[in-house]
């Protein structure tokens, strides 16, 4: 248990940060309470978590990529493509059941992630360029796969739709997936050699190479896992919203990165924790769900998220102020 906790929150410095984020989330809830006490009811909180689960999942994958000094802009497009393909599989072969759907979503997502990973690893192309390209390709591929048609709920089998809605202990299966995934990623990052090497490779690539860690392979691995998670989210998203179409989750990658940055993941690699990412995603989720309740127009949500994200990145940039002979150092890659 101690290991799991340590895995979720790595390092003393980060723990204070996570405590701060947790406090901020609680403060938010306390601030909402007088306006709308029902918000704090467990059922509602479970709903908020359910609504944030996909963001949490994707942010976990994105964190792995950010840890190795990369960035994955293609995860939302990966999600849309994979989601459409499994929706079509389900539409035309509803009798196959859920297992092939789940397996296909993870494998296909991993394959799409591997494309990114291979280009970054073998050709050393900046990850932002690679994923900008694959973002367009995967998004267009959704259209090619579906012919521009929607897959609606009446074309989905009950099992396909039912899994995410099935509740256990008052919490949806979608939420459980996020919880289990977060725990798995935490354990992976904490206990596996590969997970530890992701941190080392991003924290100090030169020292990592000296310690015998192949930085390129680490980046490739991070993209692969992020892709697999995005693929799984493809199924979950399509199932939860009971519709698959070309523009599913369009632009969502930037919210995912925002959740990571708010959660304390450093864009320059090597720093980040599962706890921070989950809290960062929840922070955005609570704001999104609370604003309409406290009487703020839903149209203000985006502006508030924008202020929050911009403020968070600005605060994160503090502390790395210019040292005396900054000019003697190269800015981080």
């Amino acid at each position, binding site marked *: 248990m101690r290991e799991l906790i340590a895995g979720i929150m790595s390092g003393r*410095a980060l723990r204070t940060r996570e405590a701060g984020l947790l406090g901020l989330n609680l403060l938010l809830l306390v601030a909402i309470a007088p306006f709308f006490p029902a918000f704090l009811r467990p059922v509602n909180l479970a709903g908020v978590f359910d609504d944030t689960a996909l963001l949490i999942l994707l942010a976990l994958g994105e964190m792995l990529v950010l840890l190795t000094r990369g960035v994955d802009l293609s995860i939302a497009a990966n999600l849309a493509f994979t989601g459409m393909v499994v929706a079509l599989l389900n539409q035309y072969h509803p009798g196959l059941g859920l297992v092939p759907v789940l397996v296909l979503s993870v494998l296909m997502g991993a394959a799409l992630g591997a494309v990114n990973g291979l280009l970054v690893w073998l050709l050393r192309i900046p990850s932002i360029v690679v994923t900008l390209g694959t973002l367009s390709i995967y998004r267009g591929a959704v259209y090619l796969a579906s012919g521009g048609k929607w897959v609606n709920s009446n074309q989905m089998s009950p099992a396909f739709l039912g899994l995410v809605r099935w509740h256990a202990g008052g919490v949806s299966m979608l939420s459980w997936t996020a919880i289990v995934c977060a725990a798995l990623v935490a354990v992976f990052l904490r206990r596996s050699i590969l997970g530890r090497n992701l941190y*080392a490779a991003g*924290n*100090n690539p030169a020292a990592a190479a000296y310690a015998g860690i192949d930085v390129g392979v680490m980046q490739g691995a991070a993209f692969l896992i992020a892709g697999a998670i995005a693929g799984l989210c493809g199924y979950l998203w399509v199932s939860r919203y009971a519709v698959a179409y070309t523009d599913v989750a369009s632009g969502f990658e930037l919210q995912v990165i925002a959740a990571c940055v708010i959660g304390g993941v450093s864009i320059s690699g090597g720093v980040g924790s599962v706890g921070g990412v989950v809290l960062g995603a929840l922070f955005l989720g609570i704001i999104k769900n609370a604003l309409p309740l406290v009487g703020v127009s839903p149209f203000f949500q985006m502006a508030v998220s924008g202020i929050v994200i911009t403020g968070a990145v600005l605060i994160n940039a503090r502390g790395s102020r210019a040292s005396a002979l900054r000019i003697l150092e190269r800015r981080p890659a």
Partner: protein
Amino acid sequence: MQPILSLEGVAKSYGGVKALTSGALDLYPGQVTALLGENGAGKSTLVKIITGIVRADGGRIVLDGGPVSIASAEHARSLGISAIFQEPVVFDALTVAENIFITGRPQKRGVVDWPTMRRRSREILAELDPGIEPDMVLGRLSVAQRHLVQIARALSNDARIVIMDEPTAALSHREAEELFAITRRLRDEGRAILFISHKFEEVFALCDRYAVFRDGAGVGQGMIEGISSERLITLMVGRPVDQVFPKQTVPIGREMLRVEALGRGQEYEDVSFDVRQGEILGVYGLIGAGRSEVMHALFGTAPAETGRIVLDGETVTIRSASDAIARGIGFVPEDRQMQGAHLRLAIGDNITLPSLGRTTRAGFLSRRRERAQAGPLAQSLGVKMSGLDQRVEELSGGNQQKVVIAKWLATSPRVLILDEPTKGIDVGAKAQVHRLMGELAAQGVAIIMVSSELPEVLGMADRIMVMRRGLVQAVVARAEATPERIVRLATDA
């Protein structure tokens, strides 16, 4: 007694520049060997070869009586060789325990065994500094503690050979004493230790043996007992200086630059000196003595917090490089590739960059004027190139340096600062750079030359300012400068 590790005639070149020609070194178990030499003598290349970071071009390495070829850093570790680097090769976002075991984390059933890692870290750290907890994030530790973590890493690898590359450079006296106690303990456990330092007092207090390097070659080894610091200095500097540097006698003009009591944080304080037209002021000191920092203050790229700069009789405020350029100050920085040259731009574009105002009209570029400006400069400096359109990255180090110097000559500076102007360039280019400095001085330019190479400072400078730990120790006139005196001023000897 047989040496555990023996290097014979080891050589290494980087792109034609010989860093090491015949490195010779013997390390004995249970002894601390001091590695001495000026900057550029080949010490760090030697360390890189022993630790497997680079491979030697020639020579023999004998370990335990048998020849070995050290293929990689991992291979070196498996042979029992570990190093504590000057710039710690550590992960500041990871914990102490993980930094110690980064190359071999304890595992149980295929996953990292944190309890064991923590326990073993604590065991190792208990002997070094019980104040360091395995769970601390490394970024929070002091420099001294980071060194200890590197030592702990060496111990976790069961290193028989431990290399310490100027471990005390950034340590306080007390921290250094603690490090020595630990080093002695490692020695008494039978490990062979290579200790690199510029500080003689440390060498005499700690080391059993010495090995001196000069110009890429081993020039002497032996027991510390019975040798004097004078003898070691002679070995380090040991060559007749005047023959190599044909110093021109130039009439010294009026005072061009005077600085009074410059200071900035912990970096340097109360730095005062002046330099005259036609004069070359040498600035000597060990790495970390604050020399480059003072130069960046003069150039405005890291302005001083206190003090005054007087240029040609006028007190000036220099807050940026463009201020400095406008006032006729040029700066050839130490890090040529990062700060000096734009490697991916053409030679001509490099040369005209700081003086774009002269080759443009109303902001518009003129190819013709640029060529008229850059061409003669590149030619008179003897840049070997296919044309002004060639990219700087395709040139040799020496020619790159000539391009950087040319770009400052294009600004017609009154004061030219050169920070390690001949670092990493070949002998021929060195001589050309030195000749050029003489010519510039003859034209009345006031030159400040920062150098860690004693022969260069002694051979080129009219006066030598020696800095140590952020303070000016002395300004020595050329006639009174001897290698021994300068080194003594720069070190604790």
